[in-house]
Structures are given as structure tokens and as C-alpha cells.
């Protein structure tokens, strides 16, 4: 019942999400324009990216209002594979770069 109610009109939530997404985009662009240290810049933009993705998934795609098994299927399926992809590939990429500079 909660899921069905959650899928009804929620304009205020949609526009609040839209404003937050725009604000985060502005933060990312400002961080890009400022000469902040590389690590700080990466932390800011990657965090903003993950928050934006979560907001779109939770509010626009209604995952927050779906049954937990459906939400978990999507989130775990995508996140786990994404993490495995990057965790397995990135060390190799660094190693090859180091080898090619020798």
C-alpha cells in the first residue's frame, strides 16, 4: 500500500529533487573552476555524482517507494558489478602505466 501511495502525485518531492540536482551540478562546476587540490576535487565531484545518482534512483525512479527486494535487486546488481569492474581493472591500469614509464 505504501508503494502504491508513493507512486501517486508528488510534485513537491520531484521539484525538491530537481533543485538539489541542479545545486549539486553547480557545486561540481564551481569545484572544477577553482584550483583546489586534486584529491579534494575528486572527493567533492565523486561524492556529488553518487548523491545525484541516488536521488534520481530513489525519487524519480521511485525505488524508495518500491518493495525492498526490488530495490535491493537493482542496487546490489548494479553497484556490486560496478565495484568489481573498477576494483579489478584499476590496479592493472596503474601497473601497466608504471611499466610503460620504465
Amino acid at each position, binding site marked *: 500500500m505504501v*508503494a502504491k501511495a508513493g*507512486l*501517486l*502525485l*508528488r*510534485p513537491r518531492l*520531484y*521539484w525538491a*529533487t*530537481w533543485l538539489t*540536482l*541542479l545545486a549539486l*551540478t553547480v557545486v*561540481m*562546476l564551481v569545484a*572544477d573552476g577553482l584550483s583546489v587540490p586534486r584529491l579534494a576535487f*575528486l572527493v567533492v*565531484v*565523486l561524492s*556529488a*555524482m553518487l548523491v*545525484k*545518482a541516488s536521488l*534520481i*534512483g530513489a*525519487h*524519480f*525512479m521511485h525505488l524508495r517507494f*518500491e*518493495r525492498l*527486494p*526490488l530495490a535491493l*535487486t*537493482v542496487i546490489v*546488481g*548494479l553497484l556490486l*558489478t*560496478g565495484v568489481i*569492474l*573498477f576494483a579489478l*581493472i*584499476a590496479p*592493472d*591500469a*596503474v601497473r*601497466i*602505466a608504471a611499466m*610503460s*614509464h620504465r
Partner: protein
Amino acid sequence: MAQAAEQMLDRWSGGVCPFEAGWRKVMMWAFIITDGLLFAGLLGSYGYARIMSARWPDQAAVFDLRLIALMTFILISSSATMANAVGAARDEGARRSVSLRWLLLTILGGAAFLGMQAYEWTHLIGAGARLDGNPWGDPLFASYFFILTGFHGTHVLIGVIVLTALAIRWQKRLASREGVELAGLYWHFVDLVWVFIFTLFYLV
């Protein structure tokens, strides 16, 4: 504990909807997961190329970030209008014209995004960017630009076509409320992918 296990067995033993969603919606989510993995693979290989490249160009010197920011603004806004279209379609008390209006705004946003992407491509091709090389540095830079934005742009184009067909069918009362919701899921997914491309390709 035993009661909880029994309840779970009841829910998953067949004849009921464990996700409390229709099969079309579950299939749309399955499609989104597989398509998401495709983009994850593309972005993963891009990350690999990026880390091992010694002369990756500075994006600020190649792209007009104001244009990319505008494209991002339009796509995020079209996602908000699509969410409102879905909300209005599901509200049985609302007139069909309300949802149609939001759908048309979403289509307009998608078309504007595609127009700007076409402009960006034309500009970069004019400056010498090719699939196998570019004047700014690592040849893979332009390859990944065309593959990532081209793949995403194709998704946007398909979305615009689907939404146009849906708007016509919705106006003629041939499309269901669930149809609008499924199209919305696809459109938000396209927006979601852009969040990653915008950050990882244009900013980082």
C-alpha cells in the same frame, strides 16, 4: 523466526508478485540493469585507458563547459518533467492533458539536448577529432568521447522517439498509465547515465 520464514516462503512460492510490481515493470528494471552494466563496462574501460594514458588532454581546453552544463541542466529538467508526467498519469483524478503537457515538455528537453550534442560533435569534428585520433593528445580521448556520448545520445534519441509515440497514444487513450511509468523509468535511466558521463568524462 519460523513465522517470518513461512511468510517469505508464501511470498516467493509462486502465484503471487513478490516485487508487488507487474511483469512489464520487472522486465523494464531487468533491461535497465543490463543496459546499466553495458555503460559500466564502457566507463570501466574508459577509466582503464585514462589511468594508463600519459598524455590525456585537459578537458577544459577541449570542451566548452558552459554548453555541457546547459545540456546537463536540460536533461535534469526533462527528468523532473517526466517524473511529473508519471505522477499525473497515475493520478486517476487528473486530466489526461496534464500528463500530456509534461510529456511534451520532456520531449522538448530531449530534442534540445540532442541538438546541442549534434552541435558539440560538429564543432569537435571540425577541430580535427576523429575516432582514431585528435589534435589534443591521446588518440583514445576522441574514441571514448564519440563512443560514450554517441551511445548515450542514441539512448536519448530512442527515448525521444518512444516518448513521442507514447504522447500520441496517450492522447488517443491507447496508452496505459503503466506505459507512461515504464517510459519514465527509461528516461530517468538516461539521465542517470549522463550524471556519470558528465562527471567522469567531462570533469574528472
